[in-house]
């Protein structure tokens, strides 16, 4: 690995470490992170392939409430280094390695987020002193710690010899590696289940089965399903008695001078 590749890789690892916590730019999502690692190490096509498969596994790893999900950043970055770098692992081996890495990253993340409780107390004392620069500085420092949480393990992986990694993997029997790649085909259902559990209630379950049957029987593509889904949602919300009862009231009030704030929001949305 050339010095420039290592530097680029560490920048990507650092940014992924910050963004997996921010959950804003989604640089740590496998498809994007693995592609960036592939670009840094000069093997983009393997990076995209690994990223695409890992993305389907990681689809339900969400920051909801105080639950910390498996860590997409460490899983994507380190497995992509092993697949796109000199160790040159196969994509299916990369996926098998990514899962334990996601757990390791999750544990590290829990540790760092506990440490930041102490930093939050320093922020409290800075606030009492009206020290705005101090608060900014601590907030940036916290992000640096989160970035290093991924960048340091990534650096360690780059100095391990590729032969050692390959030797370790070749020692794994075929029934394990083949079984893992078979499981890679359906492990995504865990992610689906997590997303479904977040949204499901008796009112919306039928729409899951409509989608399932249409996808199983027809050959429509995902864009067509997206359009269908939006239309079904719009029609349901329009026709549901629950919303109709309320919207009549709102429409009635809209004509009068004393309009409710709900109309204000509706109007503000219309004006956008």
């Amino acid at each position, binding site marked *: 690995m050339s010095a420039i590749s290592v530097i680029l890789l560490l920048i990507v690892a650092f940014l992924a470490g910050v963004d997996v916590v921010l959950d804003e730019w989604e640089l740590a999502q496998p498809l994007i992170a693995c592609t960036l690692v592939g670009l840094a190490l000069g093997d983009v096509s393997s990076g995209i392939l690994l990223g695409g498969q890992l993305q389907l596994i990681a689809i339900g790893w969400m920051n909801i409430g105080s639950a910390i999900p498996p860590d997409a950043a460490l899983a994507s970055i380190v497995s992509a280094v092993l697949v796109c770098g000199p160790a040159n692992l196969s994509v299916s081996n990369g996926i098998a390695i990514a899962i334990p890495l996601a757990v390791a990253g999750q544990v590290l993340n829990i540790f760092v987020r506990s440490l930041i409780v102490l930093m939050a107390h320093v922020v409290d004392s800075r606030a009492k002193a*009206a020290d705005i620069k101090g608060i900014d500085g601590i*907030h940036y420092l916290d992000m640096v710690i989160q970035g290093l949480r991924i960048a340091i393990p990534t650096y360690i992986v780059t100095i391990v010899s590729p032969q050692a990694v390959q030797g370790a993997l070749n020692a794994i029997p075929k029934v394990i590696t083949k079984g893992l790649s078979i499981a890679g085909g359906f492990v995504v259902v865990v992610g689906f289940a997590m997303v479904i559990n977040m949204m499901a209630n008796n009112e919306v379950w039928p729409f899951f089965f409509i989608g399932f049957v249409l996808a199983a029987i027809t050959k429509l593509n995902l864009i067509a399903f997206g359009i269908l889904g939006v239309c079904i949602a719009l029609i349901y919300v329009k026709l549901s008695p629950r919303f109709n009862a309320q919207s009549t009231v709102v429409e009635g009030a809209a004509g009068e001078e004393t309009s409710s704030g709900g109309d204000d929001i509706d109007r503000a949305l219309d004006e956008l």
Partner: protein
Amino acid sequence: MADNETVEKQKRLTHGDMVKTFWRAGFLQGSWNYERVQNVGFCFQMIPTIKRLYKGDDKETAAALQRHLTFMQTTPVMTSLIGGISMAMEEERANGKPIDDATIASVKVGTMGPMAGVGDPIFWGTIRPVIASFAASLALSGSGLLAPIIFFVAWNAIRLASRWYLQKIGYDQGTNIVANLGGSLIQKLTTGASILGMFIMGVLVPRWTTINFPLVISKATVNGKTTVMTLQGIFDELLPGLIPLLLTFMCIWLLRKKMNAIWLIFLMFAIGIFGYWIGLLG
């Protein structure tokens, strides 16, 4: 009546403050911690407002900073709306309106719950999984760099536009918005987003899973033609995607039994290895 107040209000926050707040809001979760979660990030987001309104008054600055270091937890994008409302309240307070600490705190506490209720299904339950699975399928069908670029651009265009307009709505409407949180718009949005999300999940279960049972059940030779019926063939006759559907329900059930997601992933790997070992899966 509310409109008259808005007109008479002596505005002191500038367009520049709006832009700075918008930019800072993107670092909300940088100091995510177990005690007060997004509190430092929310204060960080409010700093341009605090600087503008209380500059030179250390006592008021310190009080404002501490006001916004209380517990905060919601969908990240939605803090732009809560931030916009808080900006409007801080501005009124700085202009001499009788808005005390408790009012600001209760508005924040009162909005973060419902906002998470709307934001989580829309952003984490629908928009991201739909874009991610679409881009992942493009990546696996060999479209090269296009797939990650589509993911990045589509997600961030939606996210940045949402943050900007939510902040604007929050600031323009101020506390008016709080009175109407129970209104039909929020419920419509949540229900509509959940319907789209559930529909797409139903689509993805058969489409983005592969599972194959190569076990031969019967071999029949009719007029010299040999027909091989595998276990997979029988499942496909019943309904394609039936086994992934059953696996999904098993996962939903186990998650509701409080099983950790990462153990479920290991369980899936165990099923793959065991299935291959006994010759059921291939």
